[in-house]
């Protein structure tokens, strides 16, 4: 049976398919820049999954193309194919091998998940409030609320998501982290930004007519700049406490 496998034609087709697949994988910019530790780990995981998928994709597509090319017949060919009902060996192989690959992928995925959610002792906690259709961020220690999330670089940020009306979702693509803000519960996310810059905060759960435009920003600054901003804002608020919360102009 093994001698009958047409290695060369299959390999040729396989190489062509693989080249096309890998080519578009490498030539296209698939992922946003990874601006957090979590995004970096997830990005590595994504590529592992991609390469394993490519192997299966190439095998299946090559067999498909080869079969159609080799065994296609005309309408007036009334003959049947060989009466092959099964082959235990090959059925075992094609059950066991994918299982092994999938288990490996699952284990790797669990490891990434575990690392991404390991809580650091020196984390900074920010309260995130989602409502139709804007975001508010609260820094309880400093007693301020802002419309733009400001965080220091290279420090784990704990975001406590809360929703005031319907379900929303806090998402920063560059951070690779997202979570629903659900009325009635506090949903906690952990992000460790690794680069400075300004990135979009996008609502990723349908929340009504304004869902498409419910956006905000996150600014990652140096720890010194952050501390300075926090102190300044806090001082500005202390002299002007009406109901305990004020929306403060964010850092430029």
């Amino acid at each position, binding site marked *: 049976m093994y001698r009958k496998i047409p290695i060369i034609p299959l390999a040729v087709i396989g190489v062509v398919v693989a080249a096309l697949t890998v080519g578009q994988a490498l030539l296209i910019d698939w992922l946003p820049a990874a601006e957090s530790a979590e995004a970096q780990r997830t990005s590595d995981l994504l590529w592992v999954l991609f390469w394993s*998928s490519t192997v299966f994709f190439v095998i299946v597509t090559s067999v*498909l193309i080869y079969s159609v090319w080799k*065994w296609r017949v005309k309408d007036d060919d009334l003959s049947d194919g060989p009466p092959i009902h099964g082959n235990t060996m090959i059925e075992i192989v094609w059950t066991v091998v994918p299982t092994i690959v*999938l288990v490996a992928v699952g284990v790797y995925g669990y490891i990434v998940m575990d690392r991404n959610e390991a809580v650091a002792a020196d984390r900074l906690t920010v309260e995130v409030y989602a409502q139709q259709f804007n975001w508010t961020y609260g820094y309880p220690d400093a007693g301020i609320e802002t419309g733009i999330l400001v965080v220091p670089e290279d420090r784990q940020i704990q975001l406590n998501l809360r929703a005031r009306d319907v379900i929303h979702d806090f998402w920063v693509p560059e951070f690779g982290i997202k979570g629903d803000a659900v009325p009635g*519960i506090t949903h906690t996310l952990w992000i460790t930004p690794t680069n400075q810059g300004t990135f979009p905060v996008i609502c990723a*759960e*349908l929340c009504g007519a304004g869902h*498409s435009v419910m956006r905000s920003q996150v600014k990652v600054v140096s720890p010194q700049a952050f501390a300075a901003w926090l102190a300044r804002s806090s001082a500005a608020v202390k002299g002007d406490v009406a109901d305990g919360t004020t929306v403060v102009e964010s850092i430029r």
Partner: protein
Amino acid sequence: MDPRPLSYWWGRAVYGAVAGVLFAFLLVFLLRTLFGFEPLWEGGVYGGVAGLIGGIGFLWGIGCFDFWLGWAKGADISVEDHSFHGATNWRHYFRLNTDHKVIGIQYLAMTLFFMLWGGLMALLIRTELAAPGQQFADGETFNGFLSMHATLMIFVFAVPVFGGIANFALPIMLGAKDMAFPRLNALSLWFLPVAGGLFLSSMFTGMFGAAWTAYPPLASQGTMGQTLFELGVQFAGASSIATAINFLATIITMRAPGMTIWRMPILAWATGVTSVLVVFATPFVAGSQFLTMFDRVMGTHFFAPDQGGDVVMYQHIFWFYSHPAVYIMLLPGFGIISEVIATFARKPLFGYRAMAFSLVAIAVLGFGVWAHHMFVSGMAAWLRVPMMITTIIIAIPTGVKMWSWLATLWQGKIHMKTPMLWALGFLFTFLMGGLSGVFLGVVPIDIQVSDTYFVTAHLHYVLYGGTVYTVFAGLYYWFPKMTGKMYSERLGQWHFWLTFVGTQLTFLPMHWQGLQGMPRRVADYDPRFATVNAIETLGSYMLAIATFIFFYNVITSWKSGPKAPWNPWRGKTLEWLVSSPPPIFNFDAIPQVVGGPYQYGIPDARHAVVFAPEEFGGELKEDTRYPVLVVANQTLVSQTLIDEIRSRDADGLWSFQFVVPVGDDDRSIAERRLATTLAILAGHGVAATGRIVEGDVVDVATEAATEAVPHELVLVTLPLTQGAWMRADVVDKIRKATGVPMSHVVVPADDARAITGASTLPMVMVVAGEAVGAEALATAVRARADAAPARFTIVLALDLSEPRWGAEATERRRTAGVAMTATVNALVSTGVAVEGQVMDDAPSVALPLAITAFAPAQIIVAGVNGEADALAGAVQEAAGDTPVEIVDVGTVAGS
């Protein structure tokens, strides 16, 4: 058949719906007044109750409950009442029908109708998204489009469409005469327009805009449309569950004798497993919609956190159905693909038992993965890990199926007909969707891509590839069986290729968009996504055009396509043993299953034999040809008769036996006629035999019928005024004497004399000089005809001298014409297919022209008085390779 017209039933249905709505309003008004609920005119409550009671009123009006109500009232109702069974004209498709074949087609019509609406919504979505910024729809309207799109596609297209295909095909494939509960079947069907109607009617009240997932608290906001959505889901769910129960009862209790579960076609396995999924999962979506509806119209607080409610609870209950729902939308399609690939690769399905077990495994595991839709929802964090594991594991049985389909193709004899194209397209497209599903199953990746276009890409790859492609495969595969017509293969290929390219164009770039940062369900987006969105919109228009081609193909083929034989695909399952379309109760005789359904490649293997009723006496097999007796004499070789036999032969099921009673006629003429007829038919690929029998037509026919026990006796005669048989009233006499079903074909006299249908016979050119008119020539031609049937053209070259319009030329032409006509008539009346050509020029000019024009297979040069040799010279050169025979027909003493 129930005699009441369509207007009666639809009038009742409208009356029932309107009366129900009014009654609902009255009821709610009274209750709210009595119990003092404020405010009195709460729209959602009225709308909800009106939708419910109006829907039930519609169902009553169309007749769904009549039988049961009649029984409850004690009326004299028989279970065997078939007055609503079967369809003999188009009207029967527009009202209540208990025939599973009719119901199946009605299901398809309804679900495809809703598919068009869902597709329209998709086009509206894509048109709005064609460029950044608002094109024509604001956020709320857009949310309505996307909600309506998915709701229609899922609840009233993808889930029930397989109910339609299986409804038509499965009972026949199992050897049953109908489903276990035909009236329940009809009720299930009519739930669907109520569900779809409720969804669509929200366009008047403000479309529901919380997506098909309808998460509270968003679902608690919004217009009455949301309540109509919640109600519509209930009706769709009820339809689904009732159909599933019906399928399971049919599969378990109504299989043909000998059909063990391991001899069922895989579609039966797929439908059975799906039905189990439906029965046990659908109530959860019903529960979820009850809870949101109560929150909306009754003021409960299931999902209000400040009153002890739990928002995420909804998602658990909803997805506990909605994940199995995707398998409900896929597994029957898998069954269809298995059927199509086995038939069009002419190979047994690889690994039948593994295929059956993998269906079960997918269904069972499918109950344990629901929370992979909720990885970012804020649910209990520990639950994500087991859900990731089960989600990844489900790829294994699915993979087994893919490998098995590939193995079925391997070394097969692949016929690239339209159903097979869809199957191959499915393999590719679903593969991609399945791979992206593994990505989504891994939690950290899902956290990145959940609620983005990556998910949209995945779901459309698996649903377009897994549901739509398989539906089209099934529709094209069973189209001949359902309609009795063949679809246009060319249009089918166009449909497939446009769809395939359109699918990739529309959904492939979405993977990139999602990863890069475009969320789902948004009416507007970052301008850097403008180009991909524009490409996807173009792709979606391509899909729309392809879909229109499909409908055009269906409609025109059904109306005027070529007649379909019983078994156009040479399939082995039971539905191919009956006519296209099948008889009203499917089988005239009980099939006996003796083997598996995919025994391709084994020469004498059989899936089933059909035992004939007593009058046929004995066992019929799936490749038997039933005998048809054709009784004719003078009408042999007529175009009418040839056409009649050819048209019947298209069924692929008859063997024609000619019986030619010669009373007082010349036997040799009849023999010649018969030989010519059989040769003409053979040239058209029709297998026929025949014999001459001396005697009276009634006696001969009776004896032949007794001997052959034919399926039918076809009597072919001249018209009453022109034939001896008709004057003797033979039709009734034969019918009484034989008791065999009879048809009578009348051939006009000139058709019988003309022998025009002989085009498949080889042409023999007879070059005659003055031999025309000679009896010897006719004899020679007859002798040649008796040797092997052929058609003849007698060519006479006059060699007229100038001027050709002169009196002498005209006279010579006239004389020649008379002689030629006489010869031709004499020959035709003795059963030879012949025509004559008189040409003005000399033989050396005329004959080469004639040879080029007629391209004969053989040339005979007949001459009298030694002229044959002279003529032969003129012929020889022009003849080339064509054999030339020289016949001296002796001396002629006048004509």
